[in-house]
């Protein structure tokens, strides 16, 4: 993607990453009401709107922490589009009947749309990853969890009461197991698409 100019609203993304209450409150005050209005006008209620907003906020946090989110459009437009699409996906999942959707409300902003697609890919990738991770054995999950939160492998070995050599090998193999599964999923997907 061509690196367009970063929008000054990047401060919202930084605020989310820093868990800045004032920024979060201002998002709820300025950007959330529009989302609630939209969801309530499209077969949803207030609680469902609250859930969608919360999930999107967590997605933004994860994206910001992974340093993969550079805002090239106003935050408000991006946030609304993300929430809207999330809600439409929810509707599709839960209802077999046709859903009436008020499309006129959408203001499509080219770069917002591009960013939203990136966010959705990020989310999808993370969900796939989480599913794979859950498939690992308990020992693998524990070793990986400690290895990536503590960093020093000597400390990890000490904590698990095993040798450094063992924990290093175990870590490589557990990451390898995930690699294999994800690689297989990728190959399967490209087979399907061809």
């Amino acid at each position, binding site marked *: 993607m061509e690196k367009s100019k970063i929008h000054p609203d990047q401060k919202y993304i930084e605020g989310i990453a820093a868990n800045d209450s004032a920024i979060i*409150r201002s998002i*709820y005050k300025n950007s959330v009401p529009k989302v609630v209005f939209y969801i309530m006008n499209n077969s949803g209620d207030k609680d469902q709107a609250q859930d969608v907003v919360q999930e999107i906020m967590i997605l933004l946090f994860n994206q910001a922490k992974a340093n993969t989110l550079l805002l090239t459009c106003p935050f408000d437009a991006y946030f609304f589009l993300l929430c809207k699409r999330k809600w439409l996906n929810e509707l599709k999942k839960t209802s077999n009947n046709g859903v009436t959707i008020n499309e006129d409300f959408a203001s499509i902003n080219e770069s917002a749309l591009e960013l939203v697609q990136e966010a959705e890919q990020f989310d999808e990738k993370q969900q796939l990853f989480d599913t794979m991770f859950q498939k690992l054995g308990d020992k693998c999950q524990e070793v990986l969890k400690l290895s990536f939160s503590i960093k020093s492998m000597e400390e990890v070995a000490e904590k698990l009461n095993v040798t450094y050599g063992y924990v290093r090998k175990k870590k*490589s193999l557990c990451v390898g197991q995930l690699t294999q599964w*994800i690689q297989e999923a990728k190959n399967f997907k490209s087979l399907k698409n061809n």
Partner: protein
Amino acid sequence: MNEERYILFDQYLQGEMTVEERNSFEKEVSENPEFAAEFITFKNVQVQLENKFGHEQEREAFIENLSDIADKHFNKDRPKVVLMRPWYYAAAASVAILFGLFFFDYNQNPSFNDYNHPGQAHFTERSNTNESLIQAEKTFNERKFKEAIPFLEAVLKENKTSEIQYYYGVSLLQTGQDKESEAVFNELKSGSSVYKEKALWNLALLKLKQKDYNGCKEILETISQDYEDYDEVQELLHALD
């Protein structure tokens, strides 16, 4: 599973190879697309794991804070402190009206008591065993501010957080120790914690208590619009006009 390959990947990424091993590894990457693809996935998995577990605590703190703010936002129309039952409100209101009829003195200035809501403390949500903290919360919420002060002081001595400082300031204010209270809130005001705006609000209340209406107004005007109880700030500003 190709165990040796994954061990090799890890050794390469950890920088544990000799120059020769490195060269032959890189040669393999450039010549064998299947090897290269798997190596890239391996690296991506590492990044995912770092994202997942590297920020675990920060993520939990974020979600907790987020839920708090969201609950406040979405339930704004409900009363914030549900200490009184509706019929108490009705009783209190009728008493207030009676008093008002008796002592109606055309004094239009807002009074401290109208805006004085000490709030509820929630220090011990996460199975805390600090006795002072538990007692501080208990006495504060029972409105025994005089008793709460020594407990809060004990907690502050161990671990000075903005939250405890704030409730300490409120307790001092409620027990008429205005000067001490003002000092605490002034300290919070110059910090950057979430209690900054709350501290400003209490400093404004102190001025109101001392009937320094201009001073009160000046402080109110410095409170950010993002303050959670900004409605009340506006109301008081309006009443002062």
